[in-house]
């Protein structure tokens, strides 16, 4: 019951932020009277409901327009990382032996490289483009996900139902997809939630360091960067996006956390 409440809360929070992010751009300027790039007053003045930003644009309009990209990039990066990490992790665990060792050591090398350095370098080399962000963040996720996937897979592949499939000579990829994958969704969901949270924070952090989304894009991460200087004076430019990011990450975490536990229970039901 507790868990259900948690899932509901998580879903509500996530949907709330997603709704803002998805509908916001459509509802402009109808809802605020301004577009997100229009000037409504001097910078950091209490014009409009939440004041103006560092260039004198309407904060609420920027806010409504600014969630989509962050969410899309973070989601894409997470998915990319999940896809790569899950594929690598499952392959490693299933192949066992030398290949496993090789893959996991390679993984360790990647893990040892500081993520932020990697991101800094990649963005400096390739420029702060959307796909670069997605790929960079995705790649930094992959080894971590691979690790989790590998250990989850390793505990599943000792199960007899995998042996049974082996016995019927089910192709290996099919065993991985139909037998293993559904049974490691628990840890993967946890990982997904964690990585999603992390991606959102990462995209925002890169914007904070001036490496992420580029002006004049309306973007939550960038908004924090642009307006944090006036935190004392006109905090809304920071508080709105920070709140949205926090609510979103907390929401996704709650949701995946409860999903993961539900799925763990489903598996536990299998044990005597």
């Amino acid at each position, binding site marked *: 019951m*507790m868990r259900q409440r948690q899932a509901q809360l998580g879903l509500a929070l996530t949907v709330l932020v997603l709704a803002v992010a998805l509908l916001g751009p459509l509802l402009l300027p109808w809802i605020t009277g301004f577009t997100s790039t229009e000037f409504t007053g001097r910078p950091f003045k209490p014009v409009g409901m939440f004041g103006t930003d560092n260039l004198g644009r309407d904060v609420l309009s920027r806010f409504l327009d600014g969630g989509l990209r962050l969410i899309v990039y973070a989601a894409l990066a997470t998915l990319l990382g999940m896809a790569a990490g899950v594929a690598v992790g499952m392959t490693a665990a299933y192949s066992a032996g030398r290949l496993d060792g090789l893959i996991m*050591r*390679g993984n*360790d*090398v*990647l*893990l*040892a*490289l*500081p*993520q*932020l*350095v*990697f991101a*800094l*370098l990649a963005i*400096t*080399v390739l420029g702060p483009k959307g796909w670069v962000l997605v790929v960079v963040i995705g790649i930094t996720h992959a080894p971590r996900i691979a690790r989790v996937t590998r250990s989850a897979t390793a505990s599943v592949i000792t199960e007899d139902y995998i042996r049974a499939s082996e016995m019927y000579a089910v192709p290996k990829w099919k065993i991985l997809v139909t037998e293993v994958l559904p049974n490691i969704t628990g840890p993967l969901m946890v990982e997904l939630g964690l990585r999603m*949270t992390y991606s*959102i*924070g*990462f995209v*925002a*952090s890169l914007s*904070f*360091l001036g490496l992420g989304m580029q002006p004049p894009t309306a973007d939550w991460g960038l908004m*924090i960067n642009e307006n*944090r200087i006036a*935190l*004392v004076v006109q*905090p809304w430019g*920071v508080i709105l996006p*920070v709140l949205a*990011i*926090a609510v979103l*990450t*907390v929401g996704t*975490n*709650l949701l995946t*956390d409860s999903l993961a536990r539900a799925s763990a229970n489903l598996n536990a039901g299998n044990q005597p």
Partner: protein
Amino acid sequence: MAKMIFRRLLVSVVILFAASMLVFVATLLLPGDPAQAILGQQATPARLDALREQMSLNDPVWQRYLNWIGGLFVGDLGYSAATGGPVSELLGERIQASLVLMGLASLVSIPVGIIVGTFSALRRGRPLDHVATGFSLVLAALPEFVVGIALITLLSTSVLKIFPSVTMAPPGEAVWAYPIQLVLPTLTLALVVTPYIVRMMRATMLEVLDSGFVEMARLKGVPERDVILKHAVPHALAPVAQVIAIQLAWMAGGVVVIEFLFRYPGIGSALVDAVTNRDVQVVQALSILIAAAYIVVNLLADLVGILTNPKLRTEAVR
């Protein structure tokens, strides 16, 4: 056991080596010419050439790599393109400063994380547990600069004006000579790191508390305090050590944002500087340093795992 540790050590060295190669290649890709970057607007072809020669940018790549690796072994990290001085000199103080910050944050977050996690597990489902899990969930979800900015507004500029928001120490004097300046960066870092430890500690403690031997200890009449301290907690340490290792490693590479925010003179801000200045040698040195830190803490965590697990510890004995 010694053999096992030796093997891990060997693997770690190989990994470090591979990482060094990756780092080297990655820095080669940095656009622009470091010499140009240093000289900036004042660059003339003659000066550029001289500087390139001085930085041995004209040597073939493999030779530069070998030179660099060779230098690493004798503690020679090369010369900073930006200052012209040895990298080791430039970084020495900053590494110390970062270590102090990380050390302090660990001193706060590790015991707090372990204690809160344990209590949360013991009070499972009760208000204290809900508060602790809720807090760690929210904190873990917030990007670090948000935590930092929130603390600055709360404790430094707007609400209470207790702590300085930036770090400043006279040259020649260490940052830790002014403890009050360390409060906010330490607190931010600790707040970022603690929730993970709390969550891991809670999860493993829950598992351990449900285990047969804890139940058995209770059925033996062992007092509850001993049940927790002697039977349960030691079993939670190995997985928590892993998490702590990951957090420490994250701190090594991820304090950038926090150091940047508080103008803390550590390796994080040095890294951002170095990347924008194309100070390749410094980027390389820092990357390999952080990689080494990652490998070392993980090795330590593995060691904790081996030491707390008699099965692994006694393997050689049998």
